[in-house]
């Protein structure tokens, strides 16, 4: 079920093909779509890795001689084979290709083998002897920060980080086992003195695996001087840069090819399988090496950040929000990966959708002996929204406000600044809140026992920072179009949407536009497919390239036909003059250029301007908003929650592809639903208990409420081409808090930890009875 709502319908025409299926639909329903896992090269070898059985240990010795001499093995990589090569990481470069002095989590890579087939590679791994000296390990973020905790990095790894603008600052290694710390501050400290109420609450946020169905996979062909990879990455150019750094090669000796991705959700940023496959290929006389992880290995490679968030909010007696302080600890796991960036965003997004006179946020990424945490759909905003929205509901209960009314009172207006120097809010936030509330009947409901409703809003700065995007559009003599840019298709529908933007600009059928294969030698530069930036950032570059091609076609035609340039237009590869006379372009082009004709080509470029007044170096491109409303029924005897209704809404600004927008919001909402109720990486004293598909519960069709719908708003204020905004992450943000409030509304149980399992709900109900002086509180 879905709906489209336009409070302020943009005047312009609908975008060509927006009602039609995505352009990648045929290849995907016929099984012809090609992913990295499908890449095969003649003479291809297969890699497998040996992983640490210990959470923290010093490596005393590695004896790989038996593995090396096994027939069929072409190369073994241990710490001996990576001497002189650099470690990787987003800001903090702390992750080596294979472990050197020590292993830092269960699953850390100790050695890698290339062999003629996977079976032989496995057999070789069994022959590698590693002597460890176990070291004390630490898994809890608070415990890790204690001075007595083991130092997971005794020597501080190299780190580089941004300058930041007004009110923001960041630094690496600020405390024991802290890889990165972000701070943001605005307004006067004295605001606290004007508050009538101050509440401080602590929330915990769980940790999920991305569970992209296509595992991490790479095929590499590499010598000491040249590297080519086919790999499942969201960020081809950052990958090239990082590989150049790790292997000490010029970037033009490294070529990164990126086929379709079978899901990413943030996981496929930064090296995963690449460096291992490359090093093994280099040591196997340049033969191609394929390293495809199993799902179990994916679990040992990257996760979301679990977090402890303490939020202190001050407000006036009438419910006006005044000041908010937050202290967030993210569990970054053993290596920094994207933790610094996630810390930055989790800290920055703590104000939520509300107006505060004073904001003071600190977020620290803590190193522990667990799987590294990195980018994950929502990127810090999911953690921040959970705590921020949950506290609004706790405050509403304490002061006797209706949670929706308290939100409406404090929600920022359209056009109001988020914080000084930042982009004004570009959606009508209240409109969205009322929309989802009314969609579940929040305001005119009849109270039924054990049933409750909740509404929430999540907000994140979208489009990324420092993202120069380039695109190229080429049109052949016959009007067949290529779009050449590095936006990776990982399911979000970006390729299709960008092709539609080209088609819209050139006035042709989107089917005539082909998205060219991505390889870093030939594809124009881009910073990466992340931060919901595809449409709002790359879309501008693509549109500019298409506009420029169109201009060049019109210039050529006007000159050739001796017509006034301003009086002609392009329609379906035909020139139309002021009188409506049409001139087909192919014969015109052949006449003018002769031979095999011509190809019109133009480039486009876009980058948001940086500004030192913007806290994060540049004002954000757009605000990505997720609104949600939920209704639950709770069994008070068991704590079991049944989700009766879930409505999610995002603001596309302007829809380029209806199915695409809807799919992004609904898909994101179901990530949120799972995080709310059951999906979680479970640990017992640091040991991952459910790191495989059978034990790790992801949502299935049966988990989706019978009344589940999405509303794609087109508010028309987006900064992207045609008024668009980015999609894909917003829908995840408000789900868990909306469900939490619905549970509170139904039972009085105010939960502060995720997931909201029957056990937690049951205990929450008992606690609520005690709080409200219920008779059976101690039963």
């Amino acid at each position, binding site marked *: 079920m879905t709906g489209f709502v336009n409070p302020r319908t943009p005047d312009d025409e609908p975008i060509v093909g927006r009602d039609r299926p995505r352009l990648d639909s045929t290849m995907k329903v016929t*099984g012809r779509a090609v992913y990295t896992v499908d890449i095969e090269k003649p003479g291809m070898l297969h890699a497998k890795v040996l992983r640490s059985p210990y959470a923290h240990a010093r490596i005393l010795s590695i004896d790989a001689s038996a593995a090396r001499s096994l027939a069929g093995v072409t190369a073994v990589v241990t710490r001996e084979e990576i001497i002189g090569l650099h470690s990787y990481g987003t800001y903090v470069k702390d992750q080596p290709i294979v472990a050197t002095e020590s292993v830092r989590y269960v699953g850390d890579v100790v050695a890698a083998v290339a062999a003629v087939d996977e079976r032989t590679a496995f057999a070789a791994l069994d022959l590698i002897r590693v002597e460890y000296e176990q070291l004390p390990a630490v898994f809890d973020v608070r415990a890790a920060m204690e001075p007595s905790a083991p130092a997971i990095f005794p020597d501080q790894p190299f780190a580089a980080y941004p300058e930041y603008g007004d009110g923001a600052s960041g630094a690496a290694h600020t405390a024991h086992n802290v890889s990165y710390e972000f701070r943001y501050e605005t307004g006067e400290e004295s605001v606290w003195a004007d508050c009538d109420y101050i509440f401080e609450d602590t929330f915990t946020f769980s940790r999920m695996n991305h569970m992209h169905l296509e595992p991490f996979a790479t095929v590499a062909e590499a010598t000491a001087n040249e590297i080519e990879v086919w790999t499942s990455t969201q960020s081809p150019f950052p990958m090239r840069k990082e590989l150049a750094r790790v292997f000490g090669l010029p970037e033009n000796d490294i070529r990164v090819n990126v086929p379709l991705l079978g*899901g990413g959700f943030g996981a496929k940023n930064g090296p995963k399988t690449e460096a291992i496959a490359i090093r093994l290929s280099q040591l196997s006389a340049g033969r191609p090496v394929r390293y495809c992880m199993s799902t179990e290995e994916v679990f040992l490679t990257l996760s979301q950040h679990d977090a402890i968030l303490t939020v202190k909010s001050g407000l006036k007696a009438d419910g006006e929000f005044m000041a908010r302080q937050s202290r967030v600890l993210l569990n970054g796991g053993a290596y920094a990966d994207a933790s610094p960036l996630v810390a930055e965003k989790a800290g920055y997004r703590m104000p939520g959708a509300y107006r505060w006179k004073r904001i003071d946020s600190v977020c620290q990424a803590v190193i522990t002996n667990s799987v590294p945490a990195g980018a994950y759909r929502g990127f810090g905003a999911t953690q921040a929204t959970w705590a921020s929205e949950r506290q609004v509901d706790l405050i509403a209960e304490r002061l006797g406000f209706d949670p929706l009314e308290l939100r409406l009172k404090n929600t920022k207006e359209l056009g109001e600044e988020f914080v000084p120097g930042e982009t004004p809010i570009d959606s009508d936030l209240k409109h969205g809140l009322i929309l989802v509330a009314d969609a579940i009947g929040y305001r005119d409901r009849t109270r039924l026992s054990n049933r409750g409703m909740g509404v929430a809003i999540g907000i994140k700065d979208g489009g990324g920072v420092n993202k120069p995007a380039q695109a190229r559009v080429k049109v052949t003599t016959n009007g067949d179009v290529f779009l050449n840019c590095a936006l990776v298709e990982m399911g979000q529908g970006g390729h299709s949407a960008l092709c539609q933007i080209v088609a819209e600009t050139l006035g042709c059928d989107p089917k005539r536009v082909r998205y060219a294969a991505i390889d870093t030698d030939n594809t124009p530069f881009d910073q990466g497919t992340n931060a919901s930036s595809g449409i709002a950032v790359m879309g501008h570059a693509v549109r500019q390239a298409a506009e420029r091609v169109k201009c060049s076609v019109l210039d050529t035609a006007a000159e050739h036909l001796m017509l006034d340039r301003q009086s002609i237009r392009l329609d379906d590869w035909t020139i139309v003059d002021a009188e409506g006379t049409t001139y087909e372009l192919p014969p015109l082009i052949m006449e003018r250029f002769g031979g095999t004709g011509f190809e019109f080509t133009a480039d486009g470029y876009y980058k948001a301007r940086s500004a030192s007044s913007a806290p994060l170096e540049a004002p954000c491109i757009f605000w990505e908003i997720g609104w949600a409303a939920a209704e639950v029924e709770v069994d008070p005897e068991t704590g079991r929650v049944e989700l009766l209704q879930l409505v999610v809404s995002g603001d596309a600004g302007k829809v380029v592809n209806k199915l695409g927008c809807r*799919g992004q919001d609904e898909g994101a909402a179901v990530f949120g639903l799972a995080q709310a109720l059951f999906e979680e990486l479970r640990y017992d004293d640091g040991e991952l208990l459910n790191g495989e*598909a059978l034990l790790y519960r992801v949502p299935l069709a049966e988990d989706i409420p019978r009344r589940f719908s999405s509303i794609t708003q087109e508010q028309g204020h987006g900064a992207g081409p045609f008024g668009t905004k980015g999609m894909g992450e917003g829908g995840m943000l408000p789900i868990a808090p909306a469900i939490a409030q619905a549970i509170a509304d139904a039972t009085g149980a105010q939960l502060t930890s995720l997931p909201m399992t029957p056990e937690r709900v049951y205990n929450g109900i008992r606690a609520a009875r005690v709080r409200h002086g219920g008779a059976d509180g101690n039963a």
Partner: protein
Amino acid sequence: MSLESPESNEETLTHNVEFELNGSPERHCVPTSATVLDLLRNSCGKQGVRASCERSVCGACTVLVDDLPVAACSTFAFDVDGARVETVEGLAAQDGTLSAQQQAFRECGGFQCGFCTSGMLMLTTALLRQNPQPEREQIREWVSSNTCRCTGYEMILESVERAAELAGAKQQDQVSE
């Protein structure tokens, strides 16, 4: 694989498997340990069959064996000896015309990254053979045997409903012809 593993010097037990694949006969000599997934992807070149969890959980590798959906990753190749096997490659007509299921998933956006799509389509094919007009509840139950991480499922459920509708209409056309 282009080269033999060293263990193949030792006696690797093999087995001849003869079966029908998407309507055509196939005959392969495979190790007894080979799965249907190995057989279809590596020996028969059916790369539309996707490998994901390889634990019979996610359903990305779902193919039909004698009309029933099975996890190719967890079925031995020798088990399909003499059977009729169908993969996503067999759904469209020879001229490329998409089947009702394929058309429906296209139209209704029942896919995003596409990695679960082959399995979902085969599941739909099996369901519609058993019950050409399934109710929403039965569709939910069937679709719940496979994992999709992208769509949130609602658009897949709608795709299956639409597939039933399109297949029904096609059949009506054939009757009235």
